[in-house]
């Protein structure tokens, strides 16, 4: 993966730049020692590493504003960073750029049960929000598996999801307002505690913008009351087709479960060996269907789901009868990544989305690809919304295997697009999928997106080299080719 060529003239001014940044962020907030910067050299896409030029850890919005304004004026690239759990390399540093770490923005500013909102600084973890309101029975719905570590700022940048998205939405459906700083230092507030922000939906465009448009310095999210009851059904299927059919049948019955997760045979076996969740081992796929809500509703729907599963040809059905048992059903799914980590020295976690009906085809084609690339693959799948997480097993110490794994991954994602899906689900494009964007979008489509960037960061200094395969200057994107025209279609009706 080629990153933008470092600018030697910027690197040559490193000391001067560090001093200028120290004047803005005093004390320990500016890091230049290689040893100390080492922890920032990669995110959770560990195949890529790069030491930044300087790390800055501001504490206030004013400092962020001054840092960005300064960098904007002298043309220094900036990579925002939350907890560094991005799986797509979104927080990967640039050699001639600074890392703007938001770890010190870790305060909960306001909890408002009357409006059902929580306002926090962006470095607060996803779980930190839920923990702050759990004693009153509330929670923040999007729950990425990384929720202990990942920050809400990172969640906004990646539009993160979790197993409850089908019913409760992704980050974008749960954020009400933000404060952000643009590259020119402007502080902009979008939305608030009211339900819809005014004017253009810039909150919508910021969510999922992967740190390319602005630095988020405050976040207001909506919180929900915890469901009265949660129960799960663990269903085993003789084939992934029957599992897929069952998912469709549940939805056709008008049921939107709180969570609906599927695992294929390799994933089931890896998870079972690791956590002994009691998963059936003689099936090709399992489905965990979680129903949440008022007790009467959950009891009613559990029955419906059981009936549907039986009709679909399920070979085993277990309904959780206690909270402990429900947790055990989930333990295997939640440990799927580390479980796979145990059976393989390395793995790549892919993320793509397909129309659900294409699941059998995609799994079959993936099995062929697995043969061809000579690498194993295990699948966990947010079955409700078609979001696949194939885990490609490889050994980085074997020459060529990383490359083979990446090629395999690229083939899977291209297949997702081919069957009508998209390259990402909830992990973003980052550097990982950057060069695959051309398979989903035409140049015109991508230029239209990149022009948005020109409104926010015209010099392209915020997180460049991510998401888009080609960097265009805004002047170039802005150019228009105008032909003097005639009124089209002389026979077009006009009055």
């Amino acid at each position, binding site marked *: 993966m080629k990153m933008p060529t470092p600018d030697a003239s910027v690197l040559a001014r490193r000391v001067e730049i560090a001093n200028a940044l120290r004047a803005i962020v005093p004390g320990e907030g500016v890091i230049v020692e290689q040893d100390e910067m080492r922890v920032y050299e990669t995110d959770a896409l560990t195949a890529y590493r790069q030491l930044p030029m300087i790390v800055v850890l501001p504490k206030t919005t004013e400092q962020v504003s001054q840092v960005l304004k300064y960098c904007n004026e002298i043309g220094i690239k900036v990579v925002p960073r939350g907890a560094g759990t991005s799986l797509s390399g979104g927080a990967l540093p640039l050699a001639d750029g600074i890392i703007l770490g938001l770890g010190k923005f870790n305060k909960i500013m306001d909890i*408002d049960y*009357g*409006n*059902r909102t929580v306002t926090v600084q962006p470095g607060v973890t996803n779980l930190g929000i839920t923990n702050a309101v759990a004693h009153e029975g509330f929670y923040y719905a999007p729950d990425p598996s990384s929720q202990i570590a990942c920050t809400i700022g990172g969640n906004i940048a990646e539009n993160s*999801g979790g197993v409850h*998205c*089908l019913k409760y*939405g992704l980050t*974008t459906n749960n954020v009400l307002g933000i404060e952000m700083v*643009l590259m020119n230092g*402007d*502080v*902009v507030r979008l939305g*608030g*505690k*009211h339900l*819809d922000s005014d*004017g*253009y*939906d*810039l909150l*919508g*465009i910021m*969510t*999922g*913008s992967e740190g390319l*448009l602005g630095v988020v310095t405050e976040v207001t999210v909506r919180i929900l*009351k915890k469901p*009265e009851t949660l129960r799960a059904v663990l269903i085993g299927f003789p084939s992934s087709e029957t599992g897929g059919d069952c998912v469709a049948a549940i*939805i056709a019955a*008008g049921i*939107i479960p709180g969570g609906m997760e599927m695992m294929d045979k390799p994933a089931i076996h890896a998870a079972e060996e690791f956590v002994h969740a009691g998963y059936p081992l003689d099936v090709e796929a399992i489905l965990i269907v979680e129903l949440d*809500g*008022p007790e*009467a*509703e959950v009891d*009613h*729907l559990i029955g419906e789901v059981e009936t549907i599963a039986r009709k679909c040809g399920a070979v085993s059905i277990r309904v959780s009868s206690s909270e402990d048992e429900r947790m055990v059903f989930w333990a295997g799914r939640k440990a799927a990544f580390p479980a796979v980590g145990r059976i393989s020295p390395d793995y790549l976690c892919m993320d793509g989305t397909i129309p*659900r*009906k294409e699941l059998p085809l995609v799994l079959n084609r993936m099995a062929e690809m697995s043969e061809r690339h000579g690498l194993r693959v295990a699948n966990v799948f947010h079955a409700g*919304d*078609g979001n696949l997480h194939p885990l490609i097993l490889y050994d980085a110490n074997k020459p060529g295997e990383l490359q083979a794994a990446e090629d395999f991954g690229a083939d899977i994602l291209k297949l997702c697009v081919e069957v009508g899906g*998209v390259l*990402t*689900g909830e992990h973003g*494009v980052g550097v990982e999928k950057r060069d695959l964007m051309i398979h989903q979008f035409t140049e015109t*489509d991508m230029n*239209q*997106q990149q*022009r*948005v960037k020109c*409104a926010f960061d015209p010099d392209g200094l915020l997180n460049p080299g991510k998401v*888009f395969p080609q960097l265009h200057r805004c002047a170039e994107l802005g150019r*228009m080719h105008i032909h*003097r*025209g005639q009124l*089209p*279609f002389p026979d*077009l009706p*006009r009055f």
Partner: protein
Amino acid sequence: MTTHLKPADAAQALEAVRWAISEETPLELVGHGTKRTLGRPFQATHTLDVSDLSGLKFYEPAELVLSAQAATPLAELEALLDENRQQFAFEPPDFGPLLGGEAGKQTIGGVVSCNLAGPRRVKAGAARDHFLGCKAVSGRGEAFKAGGRVVKNVTGYDLPKLLAGSYGTLALLTEVTLKVLPAPENTRTVLIRGLDDATAIRVMALALQSPYEVAAAAHIPAALAGGVGVEELGSGVAATAIRLEGFGPSIEYRAGKFRDLFRGFGSVEFLELEPSLAFWAAVRDVKPFVANPERLVWRLSVPPADGARVAADIASRLPAEAYFDWGGGLIWLAVDPTVERAGQDVIREAVGLGGGHATLIRAPDTVRASADVFHPQAATLAALSARVKESQDPKRIFNPGRMYAGV
């Protein structure tokens, strides 16, 4: 000379936009024109009437997705969804009658462009939350696509979000893809009568803070109860309404829970299916303010707990009437047409205290030309919005000035 261009398909629409760009002449984009008077009046000598871009592209109930040409009538799509016991969960309101037109005429593209949302907003979000992808023509005269057809649609920037609620000022939508959801098996409404506004907001907050999946919460003060036009409601007594949707046993159970929860607030009644549907349609379509078309109608989006305070503040300084949706977060306000500057200074001052915004929805052209129809934005945000417009529509071809002057 004013021209009314009526392309037959997306290719012709593209040509029309290219022509307008080359002539540097703005276009007014129109579907069925039901919301033409929504926004600032602006100068466009040419109308681009896309009403022929109509028809379903695909509908896959099992995938919860539907795609249609932009000017497909919403009613047509809703009828189709109904057959499959599905719906657009954001419950698009129909402002036709409110704005002096017919009901049932609006197009799906218009719904998306104005980011409409009905009472279910508190649970299901707005059009933006269900708008997955589109085909469109840019202000550079290029056809492009954005988003996708799967629920997790965001790869790169979420352009559909930007286009939703842009009132046709950023691009011409030619095809839209939306998420659909199962329709509820049943609906029942919990009613508490005779509450004052502040108590009603507290009651709605209690409901929304409960785990009983409230699908809407509205409060109609006494003076407006008759205007809802639902017999069971009568007139002259305030009604605070909590909507329950879902499977029979679940509704039964939750209704019981609310009866207990609200015990201290007065007697609890229920509206069954038919009157419930009529009630929520009236709340959604602003029926209490359809009569007296000379009155100015404002739509205020505020933190829900602020609702009563904001409305009382305004009513103490202007001849105004209000009712509340979204648990207090949406205030529909009708003011006397004679008030100074359409009441905007008073209204925006009241809203400004707690954050939120006010939009002038119904007013004569002259009033909308002089008042700020959309809430004025802070300087940095206004500048950013203007740059976004510049980036997407540099020649100001699409509905220029409809939202803000120069944008």
